[in-house]
Every structure is written in structure tokens, then in C-alpha cells.
């Protein structure tokens, strides 16, 4: 139990203030301003983790006098274990993104303020206990990332940003429709997630199915999982390093968190969990095969996101405590690991001015720290013991085996599949000593600090899982 102090309000307020201050600061100072504000947010989140760990549970709820009775909307925030882990991860990834992501120091003011806006949206979304607020923060986040891709990406960013916004707005409109339907079919019209979760059984079955499908497709698009994944590889290839870190690190978790909510909220979710599991399995296998023909290092990492999110969906649709805890843990781990991978990919692009693995050779001899961090990042993604992803994966598959018996272990194969390709890439491009690509530039201290922070959290949550898992009563 955390003491009654308005942590979430403080977080949101300080980030909102940060956006304003960044926008009016000078171009050369804006990054520092962003580091201060997002660092402050990170410290608050860390303090909350400390309080949660010492007291053994996370249960925060705050309400504010902003109130729209017409929709029954209050500014009511709460943090469950799942949402707390994700919000915690979001503050750290956003901090590292501002600190280290913009290696070429381009358009720092606009980039920093967009990142702060996105962080604001992410924390608001994870903390909101009201579907209407959830939707509002969702759209703010999507718009912030749209501008992030469009303004700061590479050559074909226009097309990628268009694709991204079309998919995401499609998802958000389905979500809106679902939210309105759920509002009308709860006994007392309400958007409150807790209220809906306790009263959803009274919604008629057909309507529950419709609402479930609307939410499901919306979150599926955002996660993304096959067949709605088409926006992601392109968005990643064209986005800047910062954009990619936020996209894979935090935005995909919007959908993941939504799925957790959906399966806890609607009882009909149980009935469809087998089909969802089948879809997640298909997605994981299909994307693993897709991944094996990619040559662009950012594209490869982007595809691993889809595989990971498919596995997380697999854990969520097991609909039991272990599976859900595993999914939350895997999302936390994936956020750190994928941010680390995109950061190293950005560094490699910066150092060698090249992203194609067929042309990159001997990274280790010219960019040693980046090469070893990349190795660690790949290990962390594939769930090697002592890293956080290991705990997440093992919990997911325990949950899945409980729910689907032995078939629950099938997607485990995909981790080996994409892991094998990543090790092949490492072997070929990073640790081959026969020929060397010559560097054109070097990375600075901020990038190394960024690596260190992300690695610290990957190993922290890998080595000390039980502290956090206490929240879930696993």
C-alpha cells in the first residue's frame, strides 16, 4: 500500500509543465529541460516502486474535482500492478529516449516536447480508471507519435506516417464505438472500469460479443498482431531512433494493457480465449518466418516486437493470474529490451551510416560498447535467464499450459526461431572479424548512459523478480 499522496497527479502535472517549458525554451536548451522533467517523473516512479516493494502491494487511487456528469466522467486514477509496471517502464524508456535517442541532435525542441507529450499520454492511459479517459489519452499518444514519425523520420516517412495514422485512427474509432456501446449496456450507465468489470455479466451475450470484437480488433491493431501488423515495420524503418523507441517500447503496450483490461472486464472473453490463442500462435509463427528474410537491422527488431507481442497476447488470453502476471512482466521486460535494441540500432546507423546487415561487418572492433550492448539486448529479448524477459516468458508459458494444457507450449518454438536468426545476425555482422566496415562517427556519453540505465533495469527485474511478483500474489 502506498501512502495517500497524489503521485499520479504530480506526474501528469510535472509532465504537462515540462511540455510547456520545453516548447518555450531555446532549441539548444530544450533537451536539457526535457531531461530534467522526464528525470523527475522517473524519480517519482522509482519512489513509488520503492514504496510498493517495501509494503508489498501496489494500490493507488486518486480522484480530482474535474467532473463531467453528462458522461459520468471523473478524473479518477488508479494503478493496479499491471498498469503500475507499465507506467514505471514508460517513465524510464521516455527518459532514456530524451537522453540518448537523438544522436544527431536534430530538431531537439519539437522532438523533446513530443516525447514529453507522449509520456504524459502513456502515464494517463495506464493510470486511468475510466474508459473515456483511457480513450482520450490513447488518441493524444497516437497523435504525438504521428508527428514524431512525420516530422523526424527518414526519407519515406510521409507514407509510413500516413499508414500509421490510418491504422491507429481505425483502431481508435472502433474503440470509441465499443466504449459508447459498453456505456449504454451497463445497468447504470458508466465508464468506470471497476464498475464495468463487476457488472459486465448483465450485458446481453450478443452485445458482449460485439463489444469484445470491437475492442479486440482495436487492441490487436495497436499491439500489433497479425493480421493487423502491417503498419509497424514500415513505421519503424522510417521513424527516427526516438520514434522507434517510443513506438515499440510504449505504444504497443497500450494495446497490450487494453487486452489485459478487456479480458478482465468482459466475461465473454473466456469463451473466445482459445481462438485468440490460435490467432496469437499463427501470428508468432508467421512473423518469425517474415523476420528471417529481413536485412534492415531496424526492420528485424521491429518484427521481433510483433512476435513478442503475439506471445504476450498468448499469455493474456490464458485468462489466469499467472498468465496475466507473465504478460505484464513480459511487457515490462520487452519495453526495456526493445528500447535498448533500437537505441543500439540508432547508434550503429550513426557510427557506420549503414543499417543493412549484409553490408555491416565487424561492428565489435570499431564500436565495442555498442556491439556488446546489442548482444546483451538480443539475449534479453530472447529471454535468457537473469534477464527480465525470462521471468515474463516462463510465467506466460506456465499460465498458458495451465489454460491450454500441452498446446500452451507451442509458441515457445518461435522464440527459438527468431532468436536463431538474431544470433546469426550477430555472428555475421557484429562478431565477424574478417572484414570491417569503417566508422564515420562516434557515439557520446549520453548514449552510453542510456545503455547503462536500460541494462540496469533489464537485470534488476531479471534478478529480483519476486519483489515485483508479490504485487500479483502469484
Amino acid at each position, binding site marked *: 500500500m502506498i501512502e495517500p499522496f497524489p503521485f499520479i497527479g504530480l506526474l501528469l502535472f510535472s509532465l504537462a509543465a515540462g511540455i510547456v517549458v520545453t516548447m518555450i525554451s531555446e532549441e539548444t536548451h530544450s533537451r536539457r529541460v526535457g531531461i530534467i522533467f522526464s528525470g523527475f517523473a522517473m524519480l517519482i516512479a522509482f519512489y513509488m516502486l520503492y514504496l510498493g516493494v517495501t509494503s508489498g502491494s501496489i494500490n493507488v487511487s486518486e480522484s480530482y474535482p*474535474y*467532473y*463531467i*456528469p*453528462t*458522461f459520468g466522467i471523473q478524473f479518477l486514477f488508479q494503478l493496479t500492478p499491471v498498469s503500475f509496471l507499465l507506467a514505471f517502464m514508460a517513465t524510464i524508456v521516455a527518459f532514456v529516449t530524451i537522453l540518448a535517442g537523438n544522436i544527431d541532435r536534430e530538431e531537439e525542441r519539437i522532438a523533446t516536447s513530443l516525447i514529453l507529450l507522449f509520456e504524459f499520454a502513456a502515464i494517463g492511459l495506464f493510470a486511468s480508471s475510466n474508459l473515456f479517459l483511457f*480513450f*482520450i489519452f490513447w*488518441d*493524444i499518444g497516437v*497523435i504525438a507519435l504521428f*508527428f514524431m514519425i*512525420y*516530422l523526424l523520420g527518414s526519407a519515406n516517412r*510521409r507514407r509510413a*506516417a*500516413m499508414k500509421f*495514422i*490510418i491504422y491507429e*485512427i*481505425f483502431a481508435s*474509432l*472502433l474503440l*470509441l*464505438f465499443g466504449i*459508447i*456501446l459498453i*456505456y*449504454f449496456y451497463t445497468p447504470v450507465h458508466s465508464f468506470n472500469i471497476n464498475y464495468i468489470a463487476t457488472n459486465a455479466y448483465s450485458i446481453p451475450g450478443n452485445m458482449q460479443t460485439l463489444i469484445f470484437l470491437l475492442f479486440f480488433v482495436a487492441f490487436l491493431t495497436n499491439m500489433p498482431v497479425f493480421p493487423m501488423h502491417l503498419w509497424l515495420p514500415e513505421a519503424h524503418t522510417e521513424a527516427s531512433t526516438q520514434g522507434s523507441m517510443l513506438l515499440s517500447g510504449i505504444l504497443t503496450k497500450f494495446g497490450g494493457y487494453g487486452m489485459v483490461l478487456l479480458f478482465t472486464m468482459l466475461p465473454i472473453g473466456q469463451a473466445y480465449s482459445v481462438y485468440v490463442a490460435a490467432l496469437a500462435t499463427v501470428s508468432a509463427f508467421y512473423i518469425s518466418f517474415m523476420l528471417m528474410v529481413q536485412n534492415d537491422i531496424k526492420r528485424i527488431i521491429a518484427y521481433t516486437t510483433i512476435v513478442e507481442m503475439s506471445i504476450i497476447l498468448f499469455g493474456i488470453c490464458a485468462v489466469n493470474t499467472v498468465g496475466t502476471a507473465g504478460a505484464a512482466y513480459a511487457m515490462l521486460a520487452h519495453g526495456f529490451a526493445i528500447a535498448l535494441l533500437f537505441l543500439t540500432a540508432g547508434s550503429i546507423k550513426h557510427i557506420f551510416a549503414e543499417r543493412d546487415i549484409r553490408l555491416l561487418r565487424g561492428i565489435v572492433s570499431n564500436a565495442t560498447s555498442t556491439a556488446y550492448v546489442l548482444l546483451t539486448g538480443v539475449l534479453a529479448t530472447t529471454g535468457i535467464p537473469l534477464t527480465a524477459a525470462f521471468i515474463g516468458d516462463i510465467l506466460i508459458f506456465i499460465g498458458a499450459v495451465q489454460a491450454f494444457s500441452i498446446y500452451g507450449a507451442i509458441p515457445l518454438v518461435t522464440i527459438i526461431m527468431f532468436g536463431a536468426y538474431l544470433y546469426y545476425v550477430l555472428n555475421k555482422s557484429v562478431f565477424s572479424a574478417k572484414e570491417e566496415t569503417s566508422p564515420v562517427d562516434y557515439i557520446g556519453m549520453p548514449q552510453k548512459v542510456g545503455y547503462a540505465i536500460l541494462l540496469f533495469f533489464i537485470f534488476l527485474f531479471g534478478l529480483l523478480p519476486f519483489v515485483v511478483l508479490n504485487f500479483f500474489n502469484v
Partner: protein
Amino acid sequence: MPDTTSLLSYVVPLCATLLIIVGMAGMLHKNRRLQFVSTTALLAVIGMVSLYMFLNGLSAIIMDSLAVYQFSMFFVLLFSTALILVNLLSYGHSNDYLSFSMLMGFVAAGMFTVAMAYSLIAILLGIELMSLPTAFMILINGKHHVEAAMKLFVLAAISIAMIAFAIALIFPYSPSLLLTSNLVNSGMKGGYLIVLSMLLFVSGLSFDASLFPFNLWIPDVYQGAPGNITALLAGVNKKVAFVALFEVLFVVMLPYSPQFSVLFEILAVVTMFFGNMAALVQENVKRLFAYSAISQAGYIAIGFAAASQYGSEASIYQIAAHTFMIIGAFAVVLWLEEKNIKDLKDYNGLATSNGFAAFTLTIFMLSMIGIPPLMGFIGKFLLFTSAISAGEIILVVIAIVNSFISVYYYGKVIFAMYAKRPREQMSMDWTVATVAIICMLFVLLLGAYPQPFINAASIAAGSLSVL
């Protein structure tokens, strides 16, 4: 002895008359600044008085033709605010501000008449008073606007004829032409003539409200007219037609709500699709906004299809939201047009030459798409919820599909503006900047904290139903 209520209630008609007189006086003294200050002051007086009467819930009937009640005061307030903005725009950008101001006096009088109408004749006169001077406004502002003016003039004449015929058709059923008089079925079976009259009313008002089969003039006229008058047409004239529809359908023809509900379902669907589909292929930005305004009219019609007090509340909110969005957008577009930036390809890299213009246009367009927490989102949300509470799920699905389509063409403009192109700086003049800032503040604040304004809309809708 007359009490303050009845004295105050005469202020709005009096000021509207004064507006016409001041407008004509302007032709004599030929002082632009004096003219601007006096018309703005009169509009401000009207706005403040109507706000006072709205907040205190005063009601009065003036000579059996105009009524002061919360619905009318809400719209008098909205129209006077919008007219102040358009007046400011025209002061900075009209070739012939004095004649614009004179004609605006008539237009304003017509708008207030429709908003306060208590009889069908007042609606007819108000619409007439409003639409004919608009045609002359377009005509006097430059030489290339003759075609647009001609189109508007002919169509306004047709629409007035239709409304007059509609009034004639329900006259046999009605003891008087007051809005509140109950329609009695005098022997003719089923009241088919009343339904016919309703169709004629809707068709006649659809010209101005830009609902589907009667909106083909909109893009030509919006494109041909100078930007300040386009803002007037899209921001205010259109809304006046919706107000007249409220008064006719929700008061006079309330017993026939199942019929007009079906009618507006169809109108909403075809109008949304027409506007959005046509907007997809536009290259001229003004034309694009014209088509987007048509699709927005389709959204407003959803509230009519819901045919409930909740529906009219939602429509009222969306009408107000669209007023601010479109006036702000056309203000920026007007300024760009004067710099000869008209087509989508000219908009490339606008953000580098004037960041403020690109930012405000982006806010207005995001609001039109319905992105939270902007005003357009709250309006759409209210409309969708009202339609679902009336059981019209399919209509909501279609509206959502349309919102999705609209992302593409608004996105095109946003994309063009933020493309990285080196361009020289352009500075914005104060009239456009002021109008854009005021509209943006409305869109942001009433979107972020909508409750007071939703309450106002629901009070207005409630007072309409008990008139």
C-alpha cells in the same frame, strides 16, 4: 408598468434594427474604423444581453412573432459571437468593408429573427433576410465572384419559395402560424400533407444547411466567394438553417418525429458520404473545406435522426463546435489565399513559413476529425451516444466509417503543411491572428472542459421542447 424582463427582451430586436441603420449610415460617413467599432459594439451588446437572459432563464413573447427563451438566447449569443469574428475578418480583408457592413446588418437581423422566431412567418422572413444579402456580399467583393453570387441568389430564391409553399400546406391544419399551435387533422386522412410540408421545409432549409441533394452549390460558392464571406456562409448561415429546422421539426412537427427521424437518417448517411467522398479528391483547400463542411452537416443531422432531447442537445453542441472550427479554419485559409496559396501543393512546408498558421489549422482539422480532447470530439461523442440511445447503431457505424474516411483528406493537408521545404517567412496580420486564436481557445477549452457548455446546450434543448 413594464417589468425589466419585457424591456430587456426588446433589446435584441432593437439592436438588430440599429445594426441595419448603422450599416446604412456607414455608407454616408465612410469611416471604416467608426463603422467597425459601432457594429462590433452593437453585436457585443446583443451578445451580452442574450447571455444575461440565457443565464437568468428569462422568457417573453414579443408581438406574437419573436420569442425570448433559452434556446433562442443561446443561438443569439452564438451568432453574435460568430458575427463579431466574421466582422473582424472582413474589416481586415474586405475590399469594400462599408458595403459589407451594411449588408451584414441585414444578414444579422435575419439570423436573430430566425433564432428568436415564434411564428413560421418569422422563420421565412428571417431566412430571406439572411440569404439574399449574402449573395450581394459575394457580388460586391471583386469581379470574379459573379457566378457564385448568381448561384447563391437563384438557390436562395428557390429555397424561400419551398419554405413558403410548406407553410401554405400546413396552414389548413393549424389555427395560427405560431410555432406552438397544435396541428389538427382537419378531415384529411393520415396527415400526408403535413408530411409533404415537412419534406418541403427540410428541402428548403437543406439549401442553407447543405444537406445532400441540395448542396451541390456549396463547393462552387465557397470557393468563389472571398474567404470572410465563406466563413460567414459556413460558420453562421448554415447554422441558422439548422436552427430553423429545430424550430420547425422539434416544435411544430414534434408528433411526426418518427417520420423525420427516418428522413434524417437517410439525409445524414448520404450527406456524410457525399461530403467525405468528394473531399478525398480535392486539390483546392477551400473546396476541400467546403466538402468537409458538408460532411459535418451530415454529422449534425444525426442528432435530428435521434429525434430526442438528447439528440437535439448533441446537435446544438456540434453546431457550436463547427461554428468555431470552420470560422477559424477559413480565417487562416483566407489569409493564405491572399498570399496566392490556394492548392494543396502550395501548402507544402507552410509550417516553416508560418508555424502559427500551420498549428492552428492542424488543431481545427484534428477537431473536425474528432480527436480528443478537442471540441469536435465531444460533439461527435454526444451525437453518437444520442444515436445509440435512440437505438440507431447502424447509423453510428456509418458515421464512424465516415470519420475514418475523413482522416485521409485532413491528413493530406496536415502532411503538406509539415513537409520539410525551405520557404520564406510570412507574417500574419492581426485580424486573422485574433480570429484564429479566439476560435482555437474555444475549441481547446470547451473541448477540455465541456461540462458547462454541455449544460448550456441541454438547457437550450430543454427549453425548446417546452416552448
